[in-house]
Structures are given as structure tokens and as C-alpha cells.
């Protein structure tokens, strides 16, 4: 259902349910949710490792020093670049598929045919 109702509102067919993009394959949606959460945990671990390395360079660390550490602007920018690269590697198959679609007139033709 994608038409606006008389109040100008639009809802999923069953607004009480979560969005499902993989009909009959709910596990695919769940798997992508799990990959998203896993990527977050990897990012957190990488940040923690980075904290250890930076504190080690300053003379050492213990748990309290790690917990209290906050990256300065330079360190934060380095981490963000590192994180974007990690995300890019994890989701490369999707990005590559998008590039393929952009270069593939046959796929675009199919899209327009299914559109009719």
C-alpha cells in the first residue's frame, strides 16, 4: 500500500509489524541485522585496540586508563577513516553489485520491463 490516505498519511500494509524486505526469507533480514550489530562490535573492538596502542605509546595502560580515554580530534578523524574503510570492506559485495547494475544495460532493461 503506497497511496496516501485522506489525511495524507501512508503506512506499511501492517504497521504493527517491522518492515520485511525479504518475503518468505525473514532470516535474510535477520541476518543483515546481525551483520550490522556484528560490524558495530568490530568497530568497538578496533576503537579499543586503538586506545590500547595510543596509551601504550604514552607509557602504558590499565583498565581505568582505557575506560577514561577519549580520542582527540585527530585520533577521532583517523578512527572515522579507519571505520569507513572497514565498513567498505564488509559491505563490498553490495557496493560491487550496485556498480554492476549501473554498468549493465540488460539489467536496466529488465527493470523497466518489470516496471511496465
Amino acid at each position, binding site marked *: 500500500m*503506497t497511496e*496516501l490516505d*485522506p*489525511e*495524507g*498519511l*501512508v*503506512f*506499511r500494509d501492517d*504497521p504493527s509489524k*517491522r*518492515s520485511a*524486505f*525479504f518475503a518468505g526469507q525473514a532470516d*535474510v*533480514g535477520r541476518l*543483515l*541485522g546481525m*551483520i*550490522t*550489530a556484528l*560490524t*558495530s562490535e568490530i*568497530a*568497538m573492538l*578496533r*576503537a*579499543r585496540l586503538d*586506545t590500547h596502542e595510543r596509551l601504550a605509546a604514552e607509557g602504558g595502560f590499565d583498565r581505568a586508563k*582505557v*575506560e*577514561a*580515554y*577519549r580520542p582527540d580530534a585527530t585520533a*577521532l578523524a583517523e*578512527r*572515522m577513516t579507519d*571505520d*569507513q574503510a572497514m*565498513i*567498505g570492506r564488509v*559491505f563490498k559485495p*553490495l*557496493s560491487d*553489485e*550496485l*556498480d554492476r*547494475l*549501473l554498468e549493465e544495460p540488460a539489467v*536496466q532493461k529488465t*527493470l*523497466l520491463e*518489470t*516496471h511496465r
Partner: protein
Amino acid sequence: MSPTPHAMMPEATHDEAARFAHVVGLKNFLMRQLEPKWRTLVDEKLAPQLASEGRDAKEEYRALERSLARLGAYRTWQQLTVSAQEEMWRSVGECVDRQLPELERRASDSEAGGSVRTDPQFRPPRYLSTVDIHLMPGGYADDRGEGDVRQGAVFDKAAALYHMGRNGGELNDVRGHTLVQHYFDRFPGMTPQRILDMGCTVGHSTTAIAGYFPQAEVHGIDVGGALLRYARARSASLGASIHYSQQNAEQTDFADGSFDLVVSSAVLHETSFKALPRIMREAHRLLRPGGVMMHLEVPLRFDTASAWNRVRGLFEALHNNEPFWIGAQQADIAQTVRDAGFADVASGYQPAVRVADRAAEPRFTSTPGPVHVVWYLLSGVKR
């Protein structure tokens, strides 16, 4: 712990802060690395092919969306976009729950000014209660009873992540400053004594506006008790005494002519065709003669949106739970304001500012711009 901009902001541990930074990075990747490829596919590859057959991709955006949804890659992008949003709420919720008793204590101990009035009988309107807006679990109205501030803390912490820092970092107040700049641009000689912010959530804009008019009595209304209790304590810790109450902007309990200035900030797109004229008429009732109404909104219009932007808008409406996203962009809100009886109605774009300046050269313009760089502003005067 990270330094916080005010006493109520939940503190993030080392690991929580790392997760927050990552979810912003993931959203950035989905929005800035992948989404432009969909835009290119739709607007630069598919739309011209349709145009060569005399058809308009913009008009056929719903069919295009259905066609894209046959692609596994599109469904994966959709799911990841939803998952990133859910991950944001999950990670923020975990951070807030860890320290909720302390936040509730701070909210109740706060002796600084302001007040909060909740209504246990209050029911939010259908456009806010049918789905959890922005996928925020529980929605704006979530309230676990007396003393609860959880949804306010979650919303405040997540808002800076949601806007990816573009709305003034953790204070999230650029829209408030921009509203005041619009007031200074259009009404440079005026100083309001009583101000109402409709749909104030945790008082991001309300508090910023109050800072310019220290003599004014400032009120904020919204639909959630937990939001409002948090808002009062947040404003108080930033030095502002603001009176918050749980009310529907379509019909409030304030007396006729109570205010000199009635505003809202990115609220109208969370309402409905039926609510818009009611909100405008209520604002008109609440203003004294000569009083000013101003609404700030996202600077997007459906008629000028490309085919991809329409497909993206449909995704936002259906899957980020923004049911009025498209309706609001189609509505002639300026006409609704005139119909409500306002004079000197102006609509256009106000460049976003971090600090408003009464002496600044007016920059309110008819030239659109990107979200967060400019905001759509609509204002009128009650005669």
C-alpha cells in the same frame, strides 16, 4: 566518560562512544556511498529511458520502487538502512538504561526553574500513535509513569547521531537559532514576552529560543510525559526556566491571546492534512493581535523532487515510519496559514545559523538549498 553539554545528557562509556561513532559512520556509508548509486541508476539511467518513450519517471515513482524492490541489492540496501537506524536506537537505549536511575534522580533533584505538567488521560493523535516515528521504540509518547525520563534521554542522545552532528552537535539547537534569525530578519524591532513552542520534544529549539529573550515566559508542548520531564530538567541545567505541558497542538488549554510568538521546529511533517489547518487555527487563537507565528520545516517539495527523491521519500515514509513525509511535501502549507486568518504570510528558505544576530543582514530567501544548510520557514502575523 565523555564530557556532556548539559547535566541531563547520558554519559557514554568508552565502548558506547565507539558504537555511536560507528553507527554514524554506517549511516554515512549507506547515505553517501551507496545511495548516490541508486540515485544515478534511477535519475540518470532509468528516467531518461522512460523519457525517450514519452513517460515521466517522477510520475511513475511507485512503479519504479516496486521494480527496484525486485533486486536483491535494493532490498539489502533497504534492510541495512533500517538495521542501522535500529542499531542506533538499540545502542543508545542500552547506554540510557545503564544510568537511568541516576538520570531520574538528577531530573527530580533539579531545583532550577521551569515546570512540567503531564496529563495521564492524554492520548496522542493517530499520526503519532500508529507507528513509532523514526523507528524509535515506543514513539514520542512513550511514558512509564511519574518521574520517568527515559524517552527524553534516548531521544536527546540519539538526536545528535540522527542528524549526524549537522544540527549543532549534542545541543541540537541550530534549528532554534535559525527560527530566531528568521524572527530577527522579518521582525527586527519586536521582542516577545510570551512564547510557545509546539512539538518541542526535549526542548532543543525551545531552550535556544529562550536564550535570546531572557525576560519572556516560555512554554513548550508535546505528546510525551517522559520527553517533557527530561526537557524541563535539560532546559534548567542550561539555565532556562521553561514551562512544559503535555498537549496536542491542534487544541491546547491556553487562553485566547496568550502568546506573542508561536513556533514549531520540524513538527509539521509529523502531522496530517487534517491536523495542519487545526494547528494553524489554534496558533491564531493563541496569539494576541500583532503576534507572530513561525514554522520551520525540511526544505523539500514533492513537485520538484526527482524520481529517486520520490522513491527515497516513499522509503522514508514506509520504513523509517514517517507517515506524513510525502503528504507534508505536497501540502500548500502557506495557503493553510492564510486560510487560518494570518496576514503578511511569507514562506521561503532561511540559512541555518549557530547563533542568531538581530543586527545581521537579512538572509531569508526564495532560493532553496540542501537540508541542514537551509530550512524552510513559514511565518505570518495575526492582525
